[in-house]
């Protein structure tokens, strides 16, 4: 459903991604792993339209995303849980969720989406009127995931959802990712927590210094010593 071919992304004159090609199939969790600064966030942000591709193509369900204005990507059925959560801190939990459903298509299903998000994260209905910036880290991550689900994505991009969370909360987050996938949502999962990521993924790509250096089934990669080497940035 998502096919990326020969993607190059630059920040100004500095190139951050070289010839990145990958694909995601319907209902699949695909992990992207790599060390700090490898270009993982750059990649998912490019798919979302937050960064622009200099070269290459990003095709989602037959639509060329690189031709779309950044704010139009979400309407195609893609949503992001950004690195560091990036909630709207001075808006309430509920307002953050509502904005997740900003695009017209998602807005029509607002009630169902909200019911689902509250079912996944009951805490969010208790906290609905609290300012997002005042939540705990774990709660903020739930809002970030909930906000993305409110957009009714068929593809969910998750950038380090377990970052900085206590182990029990990490368990909860990973369990929710599996439930989301069980509803038929495909997931691109960027993680530092390689083992956990490979556990719930079908396939994985290893990024190093802006290039894909390894790819394969999660089981294969988990058994491969080269993955560890690549992750250390060799």
């Amino acid at each position, binding site marked *: 459903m998502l096919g990326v071919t020969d993607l190059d992304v630059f920040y100004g004159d500095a190139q951050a991604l070289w010839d990145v090609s990958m694909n995601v199939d319907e209902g699949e969790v695909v992990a992207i792993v790599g060390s700090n600064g490898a270009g993982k966030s750059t990649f998912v942000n490019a798919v*979302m*339209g*937050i960064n622009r591709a200099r070269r290459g193509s990003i095709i989602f369900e037959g639509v060329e995303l690189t031709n779309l*204005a*950044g*704010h*139009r*990507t*979400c*309407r195609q059925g893609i*949503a*992001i849980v*950004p690195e560091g959560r*990036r909630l*709207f*801190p*001075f*808006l*309430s939990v509920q*307002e953050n969720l*509502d*904005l*997740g459903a*900003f*695009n017209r298509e*998602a807005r029509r299903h607002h009630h169902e989406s909200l019911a689902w998000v509250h079912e996944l994260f009951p805490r969010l209905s208790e906290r609905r*009127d609290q*300012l997002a910036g005042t939540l705990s880290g774990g709660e903020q991550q739930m809002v970030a995931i909930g*906000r993305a689900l409110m*957009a009714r994505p068929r593809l969910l991009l998750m950038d380090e959802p377990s970052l900085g969370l206590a182990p029990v909360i990490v368990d909860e987050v990973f369990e929710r990712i599996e439930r989301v996938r069980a509803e038929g949502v495909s997931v691109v999962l960027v993680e530092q927590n390689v083992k956990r990521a490979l556990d719930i993924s079908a396939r994985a790509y290893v990024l190093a210094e802006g290039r894909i250096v390894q790819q394969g089934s999660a089981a294969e990669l988990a058994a491969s010593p080269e993955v560890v080497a690549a992750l250390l940035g060799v």
Partner: protein
Amino acid sequence: MNVLQAGLAGALGGSLFALMALGLSLTWGFLKVINLAHFGLILLGSYLTFELATSTPLGPLNTLLVTIPVLCVLGAAIHLAYERFEVSELSSLLVSYGLLIILVQVVHNIWSADFRRMDASVNPYATRSISLGDLSFPLPTLLAAGFGLVLVVLVGTIINRTYAGRALRAFGQDREIASAFGIDHRLIGVVLAGVAGATAAIAGMLFALRGTITPDAAFEWVGLVFAIVILGGIGNVAGTFYAGLLVGAVSGVVASFWTPSHSPLVVFSMVVLALVFRPEGLFPRRAGRH
């Protein structure tokens, strides 16, 4: 003149500057451009009001029918130019200062540097005042306060109570992510800059209503209006209005009990103290503001 009268008259006068500050504060707070050209738009609004009221039978208030659309479009066009050249917050100060100088020069070339004032026959407001008990207030000032109040309530309600306003606040807090969820930054920028242009038209009209106008008036507004934007909290609509009233009241009291030339000293001491102790402005945003 007693303290109450001086303070009240000053506060009402301050509401005109609050109106000038409103547009500046909105575009600064939400679009992250410090648009000094806004003062040029207000000046243009004053002169257009003068010209239209003098040469057509419209009457000064009805000139808004023309000046609001004109300045709305001009404000939006200037914003598009900033976007086109990817002007950053800091460089916007410089670029828009250049634009301000150009706008003032244009006004200068069309209407000359002479004092202009609407004739009493077209502007009956300038000389009228309304008495409340012992207190008497000039009509233009009361009109400024009225317009200010209506606009602040209107804009504040849109920003804080509507879905579009919520999208705007989200955009002000994280543009990239707001865009990732479908909020169109170009649309928001154009609409907001257009609204700021419309407020410039209203402020310009109200300024012309008070009496004389000269091209240099634009530069004279800058200090006071910046003080109001900072004290009110950047992007805080209600705060801007309160700050305008406060700055006006303080200036009024200082002017009548000390000397007018000391008003800026007192006002800017307030700004410095506010920046030290309340960098977010004197009027903290309630939940969900901005």
